[in-house]
């Protein structure tokens, strides 16, 4: 199956935040953050992703050579082609579908939080439901798995008024994004670029950016955490072998010893 992707044209985003609302509505996320607005010196709200906010528009006040400008970034899970969160998830609550979507089944999650610590973008948010028992669940954008799994558009794409969001075959989205970047460069945005084509196995969330990724706070070269592989692909099998070998060794030692030591000789 070919991969799907979301193309986000940040040069068309007006920061209306309709995507934030549509996301909460479809995914049954609470809106309580809006009643507790805090002034962080910016128009952005809420101040960060949270268990209740799977996508949000990040505001960057950019002071470039042409003067002050807003840079908007629609944050959320980037659906890596090589997702470390799936690799380290001990419950298979996080899965990579054959079309590349990294989906999440809340019922399977036990709240260990490894995904949040191995994500190269720090996206998964741990929802602690009981601080005393540590009861928690992970949460993140699933590309509206129940919609996209049934041929519908993700809620944010469906709602985006300026048409900044597009959804479909990943190769088509890349071609579309590259064409847009060329058009932007022709218009004088010399730093325009397409983000996500090759990073971490190719991202499922592609950004058309007017400035360099760093200006948006995006890592230019996000790294898949090598320790995820060292842990899951090396330490885990070796540990299993060590445990199995110890059990077998102890059983073998028992029979060898029983053959060689007569109980009568032991006081």
């Amino acid at each position, binding site marked *: 199956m070919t991969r799907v992707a979301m193309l986000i044209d940040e040069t068309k985003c007006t920061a209306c935040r309709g995507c934030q609302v549509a996301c909460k509505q479809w995914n049954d996320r609470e809106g309580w953050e809006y009643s507790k607005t805090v002034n962080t010196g910016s128009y952005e709200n809420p101040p960060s992703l949270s268990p209740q906010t799977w996508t949000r528009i990040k505001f960057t006040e950019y002071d470039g050579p042409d003067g002050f400008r807003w840079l908007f970034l629609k944050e959320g899970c980037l659906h890596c082609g090589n997702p470390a969160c799936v690799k380290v998830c001990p419950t298979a609550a996080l899965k990579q579908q054959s079309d590349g979507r990294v989906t999440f089944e809340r019922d399977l999650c036990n*709240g260990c939080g490894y995904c949040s610590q191995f994500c190269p973008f720090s996206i998964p948010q741990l929802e602690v439901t009981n601080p005393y028992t540590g009861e928690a669940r992970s949460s993140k954008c699933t590309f509206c798995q129940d919609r996209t799994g049934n041929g519908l558009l993700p809620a944010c794409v469906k709602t985006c008024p300026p048409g900044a969001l597009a959804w479909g075959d990943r190769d088509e989205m890349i071609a579309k994004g590259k064409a847009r970047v060329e058009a932007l460069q022709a218009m004088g945005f010399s730093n325009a670029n397409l983000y996500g084509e090759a990073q971490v196995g190719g991202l499922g969330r592609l950004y058309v950016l007017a400035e360099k990724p760093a200006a948006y706070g995006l890592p230019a070269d996000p790294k898949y955490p090598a320790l995820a592989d060292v842990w899951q692909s090396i330490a885990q099998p070796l540990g299993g072998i060590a445990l199995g070998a110890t059990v077998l060794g102890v059983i073998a030692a028992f029979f060898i010893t029983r053959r060689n030591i007569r*109980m009568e000789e032991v006081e």
Partner: protein
Amino acid sequence: MTVKLKGTERDVVTIRWIPKYTTIERLGHWIHTTTFVPLAITGLILYMPFLQPLAQGEAGLLIRLVHRVAAVLFGLMPILYFVVQPRRFIMSIREFMFDKDDIGWVQNAFSYYLLGRHTAMPPQGRFNTGEKMNGLIMCVTWVVLGVTGLAMWFGKGTMPAGLFQWMVLIHDVAMIAAVCMFLVHLYLAVAHPLMWAGLVSMRFGVTSAAYAAEHHARWYYGPKRARQLYEEAKKKVASEAGH
């Protein structure tokens, strides 16, 4: 000793018991056991892919809770031992120190414990080399598991993710080392015929004098006499081998 039983003469084994562990030490040992086993089981459920169904959802929440409750007791136990019986604690630590007789024990252990050949064994203190190795692994992993475990418990989100990833990896490696050592310890304690007195002394606090004389000569006789007996035993073995 020979006694008359129902008209026939029969050999009866008489055992003279000498104290080895205090009540606090035995209690501590069993708290250690009853917290280590649930910790290992709940930890392995998260670790072994084939146990994944047990790690999912509500069951997973429960095993994570059990793991942390057991971890608190597991972590506190050695500290309580130190607080309640500091002199015994320090004495035990001293007796767990390695010395040159441990090399001889390692060289002889295979034929002695596995093949049952009663070769001359360098005199051992209150703990033999095997017990010392078990103690070393348990002490090191107690520290490592405690530090990495607390970091994972309270440092999630506040400590750098890269450091957290190391904590997870180190925690798992230490767990494997501890569980492997535990399996060997369990076998020697409950199933090895020569080690029959180990479980008795951990249950009742006493050990057989004859057992102590053979397995812990330096503790039973004192270093000087134990050394003398060892040299004699060595000569005897050598002369037997010569024939």
